[in-house]
């Protein structure tokens, strides 16, 4: 069996907009553009030798005051080859939007809803993009860095009224 890193590097080199990046703990990692990541993930899933068929997680991060502001991370796993890999996609702060991967992995449904709920990144083509952990009608995106940790916001549980201290 050839080294999986060489195979991954060869696959990534064949796709525009995908580049290898270093990882702190040595997992194969890639940075992809918003237009190339979906095709890359599809190739990884369908490749007969690699078989990255298991989606471990999708999550976001906020680089507040920097552009591109959001980073969406995908972590895929190949059960046959016992290998994980990470794909980061940078998303601009103005109208953040990405293509959905629910067509490739049904499990992405709730994970993408959570990223939308917490960061406000929209996933185009998602079957039901609504809030999941916060309630419908909640304003703001709690995990953005400019969302306050404490506060006295009307409409939230524990609201103390005008002039109240949280």
């Amino acid at each position, binding site marked *: 069996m050839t080294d999986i890193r060489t195979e991954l590097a060869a696959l990534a080199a064949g796709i525009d907009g995908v580049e290898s990046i270093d*990882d*702190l*703990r040595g*997992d194969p*990692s890639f940075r992809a553009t918003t237009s190339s990541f979906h095709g890359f993930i599809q190739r990884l899933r369908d490749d007969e030798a690699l078989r990255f*068929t*298991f*989606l*471990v*997680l999708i*999550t976001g*991060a*906020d680089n507040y005051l920097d552009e591109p502001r959001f980073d969406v*991370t995908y*972590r895929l796993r190949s*059960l046959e080859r*016992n290998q*994980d890999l*990470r794909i980061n996609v940078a998303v601009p702060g103005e109208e953040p939007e990405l293509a959905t991967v629910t067509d490739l*992995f*049904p*499990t992405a*449904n*709730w*994970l993408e809803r959570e990223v939308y709920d*917490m960061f406000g990144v929209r996933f185009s083509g998602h079957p039901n993009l609504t*809030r*999941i*952990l*916060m*309630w419908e009608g909640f304003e703001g995106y*709690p*995990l953005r860095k400019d*969302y306050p*940790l404490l506060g006295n916001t009307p409409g939230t549980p524990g609201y103390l009224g005008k002039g109240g201290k949280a």
Partner: protein
Amino acid sequence: MTTQVDIVLDRPEQPQEHQVLNMGPQHPSTHGVLRLVLELDGEIVVNCEPVVGYLHRGMEKLAESMTFHMFTPYTDRLDYLAPLANNVALTTAQEHLIGIEIPPRAQAIRVLCTEMSRISAHLLGLGAFAMDVGAMTVFLWCFRERETIYNLIEHISGARFTTSYTRVGGVANDLPDGFLDELKAFIDQFPEQIESFEKMLSRNRIWIDRTKDIGVVTKDEAIAWGLTGPNLRGAGVEWDLRVHRPYLGYETYDFDIPIGAVGDCYDRYLCRIEELKESTKILQQVIAKMPGGPVNTQDSKISLPEKSKVLQGMDELIHQFILITEGQDAPPGESYFGAENPKGELGFYFRSKGGGYPDRMFIRSPSFINLQVLPLMVKGRYISDVVAILGSIDFVMGECDR
């Protein structure tokens, strides 16, 4: 039961009057605050939409303003049926980020903690599952055994539920005197108890009727839906992080991965029963070869000094002060570590910009991801099957909603 399903599917042109039923958030069989919106045709479920988030406490937001040690008590409230296993998963993930190894005795103690939690969590999962489909006796028997485990956990950590036992670089304190003998006494009588659960259920006509061929998830579906833990193994996928990605020295213990054949509720039940036996095997091996030595790394930039020395020595006082106020220094970068918890893969994704506070922490909670598959399992089944399926998925809302 399959004939009932066919009746629904064979008359699409008839006008269908579907009834919408809210199950939860306070329904006892939903094991917490889960709400299911069921669309019913008579007594048959046509569609199901789980509504989660009632127990959301914003743990990930809170973690961003906390040092690594400060977050440990929050993990007690994730999967509150196996707090020790959550402590171990979090701390091991933090050590993976910082890049440190812990001494062999600390590793063995953590394995012991995880497997004790697994037995306790599976006992509750099994007991509650059995009670939901009407077998009250098994529930009481399971709780009797869990009581012993809680006493043991209280001996190690001083608390029965909110343990917060692990520290970055090791554990809070060494095992108390005579603990291993107490644990051995429990382990020695436990296989007999498992046998009695099996006698009550495995060939019980009612139990088989309620669980066989119900809530079937195939191998491919289980992988596509990202299931982990006994739910994945019940569907016939041989995947266990303890074997495939050994951590904490799991490679030195001899145990098997039980897998199911069909992927129905009965298979998931059998997997849990077998995992109880495997955990017992691991615990026996841990007790037999418990290594000596320290329970914390000797790096004073990582683990807290002894309290008695802090009050007398200058160096220890400085280290204590720095560790409490600034925390352990993590390198900038991203890391992910997943641990095989009773419910599945509990993973912690860290994104650090250096220093003692994570810039972002994501909890990959197995209950959240496993629950997503519920609509697939319940479609075309009776309402009473929904209860059995919920029991067999074995989720905890504290972990699901974070």
